Structure formats: C-alpha cells, structure tokens
C-alpha cells in the first residue's frame, strides 16, 4: 500500500520510499483561455480610456501650447482676440489655476475639523447600531449632485456667507488676504470653498473613519487601563495611527474639489486676474472656466479649453495618485 509519507520499515527488512510527487500541470482549456483573454482585454479598458483622454486632449491642444508656450501656464490673460480691432488672441490659465488651488485648499482647511469630528464621532462616540444608520446617511449625502449643492450654495448659503465675509473683513481686514477693493462679498472664493467643503466632507470622512476604525484595540484598552480618558486614548493611539488615513482622505477630497465644475460655476464670479483676496467677489477655477467659456468658444479658444482640461487632468491625476498611495499604505500597514 503506497502511503504518502516515508514509513520506517527497516524492522520488516523491506525498503520503502514514498513515491515521487507527481507534477501536476494544469493546461487551460481553450474556452478558459478565450475567457481569460476577453476579461483581460475588458479590464484594460480603464487604462485605454485614460490613455485616450490624455492623448486626445494633448492632440487637440498642441497648437495652443505651440502658439503660447509656457505663457499658457504663467499668463492670466484670456482673450479670444478680435479681427476688427486687430487684437491677437491670448490665452493663459494662471489666474484660473491659482484660483482652483486657492478655493480647494480653503475647502480643505474648512473641512479638516469637521472630517476629524465626524469620523471620531462615528467611530468612538456612538453605538454600532446608530453608526450604521448615520454612515448610510453620510453615503446618501455623498450622492447629492453638485448642481443641487450649487443651487443651494447660490440661493441659500450666499446671503449668510456674504454676511460672514463682511464681518471677517470688518474685523480682520488689515490682513492682506481678507481685504477687499469694493464691498461686494457675493460669489467670492470664500463662498465657493464653503460649498466645496460640504461636498468633500462625505468622501474624506468615510476614508478617514475607515482608517481610524483599524486603530489597534489593545493599545486603546491599554490606554484606558493606564487611566486615560476617552480623549486621552484617542490622542495617544487613534490620532497618530490614523494620521496617514486623514492625510489621504483629505487629499482625495482635494482631488474632488479641484475637478468640481458646476457647483463652483454657480457660486464663484470668474475673473481673469491673479488675486489673493479670498473675500472679494472675484476668483478663478479651471473647471468652471471650461464650462463657462465652452458655449461661445471659437475654434482656437476651444483648443485652449482643451489645453486647460489637460492641465486640470494632469493636476487631479497627480493629487489622486498621491492620495491612493498614502491611503493604500495606511490600510496595508494594519493588515
């Protein structure tokens, strides 16, 4: 009887060794090969789409980059030119690009305390059952379309926000970024960033909460055993542990905010000038620029918009890439 292991049979005067393990080679059947081929091709569609987007936008915008070169990034003049006046067209996205960064960064700053509050509250301050309900609501909020945020931001939030902006300007106006040239606080980067802050809150908090929930329970218990209060345990264990998750979640939110179009278009007054006065009714945003100029753009301006789209695409891709690396590392280190 062949046993799958060596039996000490010397006593019986018989030499036995286990049979050599058979080499099992699985030959995929033709059907499986076809299946694998089809699925692999389908799965690479994401790659193909990304490459096509980059390729097409680049192709359509080469003329703009050739005409204006580096000025396209550094100049802030956006002028389609005119044949009658003999003005040459001039396109540059500096003001819009800077505006995008200002508005999204402000949105991040506004969102940070609320992201931390929401994720800590959901993870450490309430029972599991209520958490499930609240997380569902949070997911639902993430599904509110940006046009509704824009509508609400313009018609409901703006009167309040302008009032707040006026107060900030009144008391802190001596700080250059809070100063204004004219007392008009509507449709300022401040208002737009408040709306954006709301929009990135659900995604940023769900990522952060996810990482916070993986904080080592034994260390939390140890902190309690040493006499820490709940906040003590959170500060000593959860916050240091979840830092990378928080950073990653905020970066994901930043990526969303940079690419947000319609909500910003409705709540921000686009002005083609580099400005740092965040309370004044003038700001810039690449995505909104594309949506607002698109309708009346001539052939060359359309190409300039494609170039602006390419700049935006590369920028968001970089931010998202950074975010996913950080989040990936944060969740891998705990598994």
């Amino acid at each position, binding site marked *: 009887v062949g046993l799958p292991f060596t039996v000490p049979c010397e006593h019986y005067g018989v030499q036995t060794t286990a049979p050599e393990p058979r080499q099992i080679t699985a030959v995929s059947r033709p059907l*499986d090969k076809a299946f694998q081929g089809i*699925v692999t091709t389908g799965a690479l569609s994401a*790659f193909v789409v*990304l490459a096509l987007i980059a390729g097409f936008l680049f192709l359509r915008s080469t003329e703009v980059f050739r005409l204006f070169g580096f000025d396209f990034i550094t100049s802030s003049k956006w002028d389609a030119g005119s044949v009658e006046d003999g003005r040459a067209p001039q396109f540059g996205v500096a003001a819009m690009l800077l505006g995008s960064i200002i508005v999204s960064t402000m949105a991040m700053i506004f969102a940070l305390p609320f992201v931390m*509050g929401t994720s800590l509250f*959901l993870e450490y301050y309430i029972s599991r059952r209520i958490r499930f309900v609240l997380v569902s609501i949070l997911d639902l909020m993430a599904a509110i379309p940006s046009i509704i945020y824009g*509508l609400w931001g313009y018609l409901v939030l703006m009167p309040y926000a302008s009032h707040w902006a006026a107060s900030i300007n009144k008391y802190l106006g001596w700080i250059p970024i809070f100063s204004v040239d004219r007392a008009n606080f509507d449709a300022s980067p401040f208002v737009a960033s408040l709306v954006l802050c709301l929009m990135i809150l659900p995604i940023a908090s769900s990522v952060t909460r996810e990482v916070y929930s993986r904080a080592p329970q034994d260390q939390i218990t140890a902190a309690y055993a040493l006499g820490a209060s709940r906040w003590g345990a959170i500060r000593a264990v959860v916050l240091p542990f979840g830092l990378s998750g928080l950073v990653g979640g905020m970066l994901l939110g930043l990526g969303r905010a940079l*690419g947000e179009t319609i909500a910003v278009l409705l709540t921000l007054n686009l002005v083609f000038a580099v400005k740092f006065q965040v309370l004044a009714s003038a700001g810039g945003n690449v995505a909104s620029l594309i949506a607002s100029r698109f309708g009346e753009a001539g052939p060359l301006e359309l190409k300039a918009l494609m170039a602006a789209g390419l700049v935006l695409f590369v920028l968001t*891709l970089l931010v998202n890439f950074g975010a*996913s690396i950080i989040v990936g590392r944060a969740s891998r280190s705990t598994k």
Partner: protein
Amino acid sequence: MTSTTSIVTPRRPWVNRRDVFKELIPTLLIASALAAAIVNFTGLAGALGSYVAFVAAYLTVSFLFGMRHDKVKAVDKVMTTLVCAGFLTAFIPWVSILFTVFKRGASAIYWGYFTSDMSVTSGDDELNMGGLSHAIVGSGIILLIASLIAIPFGIITAVYITEIKGRFSGLVRIMIQSMSGVPSIVAGLFVFAILVSGRGFSALSGSVALSILMLPTVARTAEEVLKLVPEDIRTSAYALGATQTATTFRIVLPAARAGLVTASMLGMARVAGETAPLIMTSFYSANFSTDTSGHPLASLPMYIYQNFSNGTDLALSRAWGGAAVLLSMIFIIFTIARLSSGRAKG
C-alpha cells in the same frame, strides 16, 4: 468533578452613565441660559447665531463641570463636546439642503409637471404650465445607455482582479483608482473631442461621458462584492471539474448577484446628477424626444441648469422642482442599492 465558572461582566469605568442627571442635564440647562444671554447681549442672532452661542456656552460649562474632578476630565469633556459639535455642525447644511429642495420644489410640482414638456412653455410662464417629462425620459435614456456600457466593463474589471488574478491586477486597480478621480468636465471635454465636435450634440455621447464616470464606482464596488464570495465554493467548483469560465458564470457571479445589483445602482446614483459633462455632450432641448443620436436631449440636471441660468423667480422655482425630482430619483436608486445589499448579507 464539578467546577463552577462565574463569568465576570466586563465593566467600563470610562463610561459614566450616572452623569445624565447629575451633569448632562444641568450642563444643558446652564448652557441654554448662558446661550440665551449671549444672543440677547451680543451681535449673534437667528437660528445659526443661537447655535453658535449654545456650542460656545456648552463648551465653557462642560469644562467647568469637568474641573470639579480634575484637568484630564475637563479636557475630555471639552473634546467630547467639540467632536459632537463637529459632527452636528456638518449635518446642519445637509438638513438645510434637503429641506430647501423639497419645500421650494413643492411649489413647482403639480400633476401636469410629470406629463408635459417645455416645448410651448418658457421658463418664466406660470407654474401651472409645462413640466419636465422630457427631462425625466431624457435622463432615463442617457442613464440606461451609460449603464449598458459601464456595468459590463465594471464587472469584467472586477472579475479580472478577483477571479483571474492576472499579471496586471495591480495596474488595473491603480487605473480604476485614477479614473475615479477624473474630473467630470474633463470626461465631457474628451467625449466632445471624439464624438460631438463636427457631429453635434447627442444623447449617445452624453451616455459615453457618464459611463466613463460610472465605470470606476461599479468596478470598485463589484470587486469588494466578489471578494466576499468564499474561496471554498470556487475551490469546490474546480474540484468537481468545472472550468474557470463555468465557475465564474455559474457559481461566483450568481452568488454575488445581489451585491452586483448594489454596485450597478451605486454607479447610477453617482452619475445621475452629473451636469458638467452633459453641457458639452447631450446639451438640452425643450421638446419631448426619445431620439438618441443627432439631436440634443434634455436631462434633469440640464433642466435645472437651464432654469437656473434663466434666473427669474418662476424659473428658479422650476429649478427647485427639478432638483426635488432629481434628488428623489437618486434616493430611490440608492434605497434599491441598500435593500439589495442588505439582502445579500442576510
């Protein structure tokens, strides 16, 4: 030999349940009184002002109550208040959004709203004329075609990562991640460049743009769902001599059916309200139509956008009405997704 085991109920000394009457209620009362005083004597006013005053008062009072014990307790109380306030404050705007949308939207909604279009009505006509049937049908068509493109590709991507586990799994996952960050306006520009320029607006191009935005959501959710299918039943299928094709189509995918419905629904909810890509692909028309190519087609987000751009009071009411309908639609899709995933778990 018999032994009795007594199970010790774990105690949680850091939870102070008796505080409710001794501390929580007094804190609430004193903080309310203090907040009322602040609102009376300073510039803070209105519901929001009262809220801010209350939070500030509550912070102070809870700190003082904590100081009766020690500094650690006081700091803990203050931080608890801050965390709860952070969460509650984040919810105020959302409650306001839901409230405004349905309250102002209700004024635009009447029975004919769902059966007529805007072909003979202009945005500033009285609210008992015209409707958004064209936008609902248009949105439905665009969403349906987008799903027909994105859902199969999304599921195939997930199958590749979980079933085939091929060489490119890591790359594919990174690509899906990057794709989920593509700004909607860029997707719109891209589709405009390949499908619309020279040929004109069409519902089909709108669907393609939406499918680009939908694919990553479907793929990632489907991947999570397929991972939940136990490895054992795959191995069992192989042991019975099933091919990988048969295992995937007849064992794994049916097992994950409910979850895949969730993935598809979440994808649809994600793109149903996208406006920016539709501005440059399917655009807007005031007429009822089911034509998918060659003509612009109305959709709910574009209906809202058009009426918002019009700017008159009546048009704004119409925009809110459209927003209420759109939001209800998304909530229904979302609820289907939740119910379906709930059944998958049970």
